[in-house]
């Protein structure tokens, strides 16, 4: 297992996380895992055409979700996530049933009204930009929200996350270039969830970089590599990195070594992979050892979530599907919802058209 290598910002002695926080972390990680397992089950039973998600990234993504400054507009954090960010959304407070709705492509799906694959979130009120399937484009979009936040000041930052294979796309390079311009550094936290795979292709055959995090160096971008299977390390590394970006208003590149516990997606079978470390198992072991939670309590919680999600999935099955003619909705926005949400700063006039 890869150990935490906090290269920068580093050094400071690490205070232990409070038991309350550890319990909260565990709760959301577990919920996220149960949700993914429900999604996979649904897909295998024909309730939803496709599954892709984040089992194995819960430690990293839960910590991120808990640390986000949640809200709308540049004063809060913008999130440009990928299709494995389930735990981030749950930790931010998303309703699990909404994810099931997207899985079942119901009209009630709040993220895309039955249009997009599961785990493709979009929550404007929390600054979560629409997750889209094309790899790495979020790294180009992130530049823009970060420029806005550089301008507005404050402590809002941009967080952008993607996989390891995707860093071969030019968009990752674009983000490095734009975030580090002299006298124009951007408050942007880039997170690479490195599971060492792109679908069936091992990173070891495609990438010469010892760590992807090293790609920050030529640009003077500080970076760190963290064990993404250790929830506490993730929390601390993210806390530090976010703190740095928030207050220094400069970019940071964080690489987390994570697992991919059910393979790439339903296209590759979505079966449990026994030979990769499981961040949830490891975390539960720790919690048990430290007597923060008992095995029984955790098992009961799992059973409860599993049951709740099963029931939710049944409810979702009864919900209406979108109607064909709805494809014509939202091709164009009729009003400027983004700027209206920002209040008086927005222009008040609209065009005559």
């Amino acid at each position, binding site marked *: 297992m890869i150990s935490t290598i906090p290269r920068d910002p580093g050094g400071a002695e690490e205070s232990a996380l409070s038991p309350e926080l550890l319990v909260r972390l565990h709760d959301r990680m577990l919920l996220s895992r149960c949700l993914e397992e429900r999604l996979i089950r649904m897909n295998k039973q024909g309730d939803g055409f496709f599954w892709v998600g984040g089992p194995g990234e819960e430690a990293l993504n839960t910590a991120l979700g808990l640390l986000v400054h949640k809200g709308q*507009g*540049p004063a809060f954090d*913008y999130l*440009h996530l990928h299709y494995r960010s389930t735990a981030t959304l749950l930790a931010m407070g998303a309703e699990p049933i909404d994810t099931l709705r997207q899985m079942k492509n119901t009209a009630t*799906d*709040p*993220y*895309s*009204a039955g*249009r*997009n694959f599961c785990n493709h979130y*979009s*929550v*404007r009120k929390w600054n979560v*930009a*629409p997750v*889209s399937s*094309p790899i790495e*484009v979020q*790294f*180009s*979009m*992130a*530049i*823009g*929200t*970060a*420029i*806005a*936040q550089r*301008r507005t000041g404050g402590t809002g930052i*941009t967080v952008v996350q993607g996989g390891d294979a995707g860093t071969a796309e*030019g*968009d990752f390079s*674009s*983000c490095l*270039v*734009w975030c580090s*311009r002299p006298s124009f550094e951007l408050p942007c936290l880039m997170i690479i969830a490195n599971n060492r795979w792109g679908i069936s292709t091992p990173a070891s055959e495609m990438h010469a970089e010892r760590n992807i995090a090293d790609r920050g160096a030529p640009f003077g971008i500080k970076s760190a590599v963290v064990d993404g299977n250790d929830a506490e390390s993730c929390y601390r590394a993210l806390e530090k990195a976010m703190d740095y970006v928030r207050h220094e208003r400069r970019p940071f590149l964080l690489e987390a070594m994570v697992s991919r516990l059910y393979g790439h997606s339903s296209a590759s079978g979505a079966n449990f992979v026994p030979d990769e470390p499981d961040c949830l198992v490891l975390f539960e072991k720790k919690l048990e050892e430290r007597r923060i939670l008992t095995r029984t309590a955790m098992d009961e919680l799992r059973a409860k979530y599993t049951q709740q999600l099963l029931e939710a999935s049944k409810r979702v099955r009864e919900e209406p599907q979108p109607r064909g003619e709805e494809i014509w*909705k*939202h*091709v*164009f*926005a*009729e*009003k*400027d*919802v*983004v*700027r209206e*949400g*920002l209040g008086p*700063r*927005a*222009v008040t*006039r*609209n*065009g*005559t*058209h």
Partner: protein
Amino acid sequence: MATLVQAIRLALHVGEERHGVTDIFGQDVGPPLGGVFTQTQGLRSAWNSPLDERGIVGAAIGLALAGQRPVAEIQFCDYAFNMVDLLKLAGGICWSSAGDWNCPMVLMTPVGSGIRGSIYHSHSFDAQATRVPGWKIVMPSTPLDAYGLMLSAILDPNPVMYLAPKALLRTKGAHFERIPGEPEDERVLSKMIDAPLGDRSKWRPEWPDVKDVLVPIGQARVCRRGKDVTVVTYGRTVTVAMQAAEALAAEQIDVEVIDLRSLAPYDWPAIEASVRKTRRVCFLNEDTEVTNFGEHLLRRTVEELFYELEAPPKLLAGAHVPGIGLADALERASVPQADKVTSTLRELARHQP
């Protein structure tokens, strides 16, 4: 009289002063150059970007999502083909999030032939642009339209592509087409807003107090009323169509010239009314002729107005070859010329059904 490029600059100035434009950016858009065609000289929100079209469009999307009002530029549309995916992404943000987000940005780029720009400074973009749902697309051919369409683009809650016909940038409008508030004397205007040659570090423009004029997106302009034959066009070829119409007037052929101005949405009622009147129509543009936007207009005409037609409708467009060659004869053979437009319209008008 303002030139077309001065009109764009004036509109951008009004945009940043009165309508919340926050960023006008792209390669060489900021000082000292202010755009390779002078289009962004003296604007306080203008800044230079890295040489990276993907970053430029990504940044614009992010800025739009963060409630800013960006106007991004691609230096020549010839260089916009490495980020068509991002155009699609921007066009799909409202739709794929089922209306959760909108993406109010303007993307401007010079298009078309006419400056002996050879293979990579002569491209058109209208066909490509109209293939991207979710965008509005405008293309002025006069200074006043350039001004009014830019203001409408800035105020629109959707992504708007602004195609500037580069061969017309230095042309002036007709006298009755003055921008309200521009100085009577064009030398005065030039002195106020055109950057001097040489050192510009101390130069500041003196902006005339121009008034708002909105040219509604989706509304064509009939440049010349006629009863014998209709030509539907936009951009540089509007002037070619007008030349042909003048020539044919001497032969008692009365040509109606429609400047579409907006390509998406486009003004079908204007086309329909004209075709019902003249019963003969030519669609004219200079993009390559296979899978061309004029073919769409022609198809709709045939589907909806077949029995109104007294001659087979025509398309005149660019040769379907990989580029426009540098030598005069090559450029002339590649895009419709006045003589060909004239003879085509003559044939249409004289055609015996």
